């Protein structure tokens, strides 16, 4: 186990270089579970992640905290864990794969399990590259993983239920959330009884977040989103637009803020399966997904 690995050019090559039965790429819930299951069957497993701590985005935690379920924490003892390692190339070999990672590692394995997760889908808009515009996931990562509130007056925009815990968390940590702007109409799925019946717990979870928003008097608008960020060196405000059912702009207004947290759901991180030549498919939500070998 190598918890204390620090990223840096001075790090010596350790026994982690070498040959494994299975390399699991990504130490989020899926990767940790895969590594635990493989190790339990007696496989020699290496688990690689770009972040300094295990848990991925879902179990993101601050240094010194521990949010992993105990069985997965215990399973880490049975694998070689390489945090703070960026995979830049994987090549196929006669016996499997060679993984090239920074800093300075070459790892041979017979099987690769890709568990690289997802990141915020973005719809670019004028001003989206200004400092102060973050992904919703980035703002959440700063808060959960680093204890840092990304700004003072924050607009949260995009689509999907993830916006709600982001806004609630910011408010509870002392940020002023000027509004949650949801481009879709989240109640549309209520007309689909099957989806409704399968997701009752999610509805209660969503209601809980909405109560937290009300407690902090955070305005929640549907069919509304941020269409422009203003400022020269950093964000000084946004233009928020009301949308019709085709997402055509109906009206606009300007809101002063210094920070934007924006995300339109999530899309899988597919660089590795694409590099390996895996067959790719477009999912129902338009995301590119890996399929097959």
């Amino acid at each position, binding site marked *: 186990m190598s918890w204390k690995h620090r990223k840096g050019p001075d790090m010596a090559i350790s026994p982690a270089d070498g040959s494994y039965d299975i390399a699991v790429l990504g130490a989020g819930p899926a990767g940790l579970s895969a590594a635990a299951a493989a190790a339990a069957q007696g496989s020699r497993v290496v688990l690689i992640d770009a972040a300094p701590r295990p848990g991925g985005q879902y179990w993101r935690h601050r240094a010194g905290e521990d949010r992993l379920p105990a069985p997965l924490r215990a399973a880490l003892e049975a694998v070689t864990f390489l945090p703070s390692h960026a995979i830049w190339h994987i090549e196929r070999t006669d016996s499997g794969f060679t993984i090239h990672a920074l800093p300075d590692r070459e790892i041979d394995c017979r099987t690769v399990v890709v568990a690289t997760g997802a990141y915020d889908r973005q719809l670019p808009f004028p001003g989206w*590259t200004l400092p102060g515009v973050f992904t919703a996931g980035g703002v959440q990562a700063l808060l959960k993983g*680093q204890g840092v509130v990304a700004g003072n007056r924050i607009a949260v925009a995009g689509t999907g239920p993830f916006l709600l815990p982001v806004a609630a968390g910011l408010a509870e940590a002392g940020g002023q959330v000027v509004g949650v702007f949801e481009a879709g109409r989240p109640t549309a799925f209520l007309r689909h009884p099957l989806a409704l019946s399968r997701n009752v717990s999610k509805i209660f979870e969503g209601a809980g977040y909405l109560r937290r928003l009300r407690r902090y008097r955070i305005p929640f608008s549907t069919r509304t989103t941020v269409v422009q960020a203003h400022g020269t060196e950093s964000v000084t405000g946004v233009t928020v637009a009301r949308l019709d059912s085709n997402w055509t702009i109906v009206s606009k207004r300007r809101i002063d803020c210094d920070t934007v947290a924006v995300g339109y759901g999530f899309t899988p991180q597919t660089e590795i399966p694409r590099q390996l030549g895996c067959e790719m498919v477009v999912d129902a939500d338009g995301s590119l997904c890996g399929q097959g070998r």
Partner: protein
Amino acid sequence: MITFSFDGKHIEAEPGQTVGAALIAAGHRSWRLTRKDGKARGIFCGIGVCFDCLATISGGPNQRACLTEVRPGDVVETQEGAGHGDLAC
């Protein structure tokens, strides 16, 4: 707290904090200038995906500030362009 420098200024970070988070907490938002237009960039995705937050950290250019944990005495500099200006002749 541990300390590091950013463009000559002293910055404090909590142990385990990333360079990017410590800079945001200290009120800084950008630490890179784009190659073509010299536009300011800082954290965008915050999880190591977008490479917008690249900085020169203790002499090494193109380090993702959102993933790189602060080490005591780190020297963080605003990265201009690709960070290899020293190679220009």
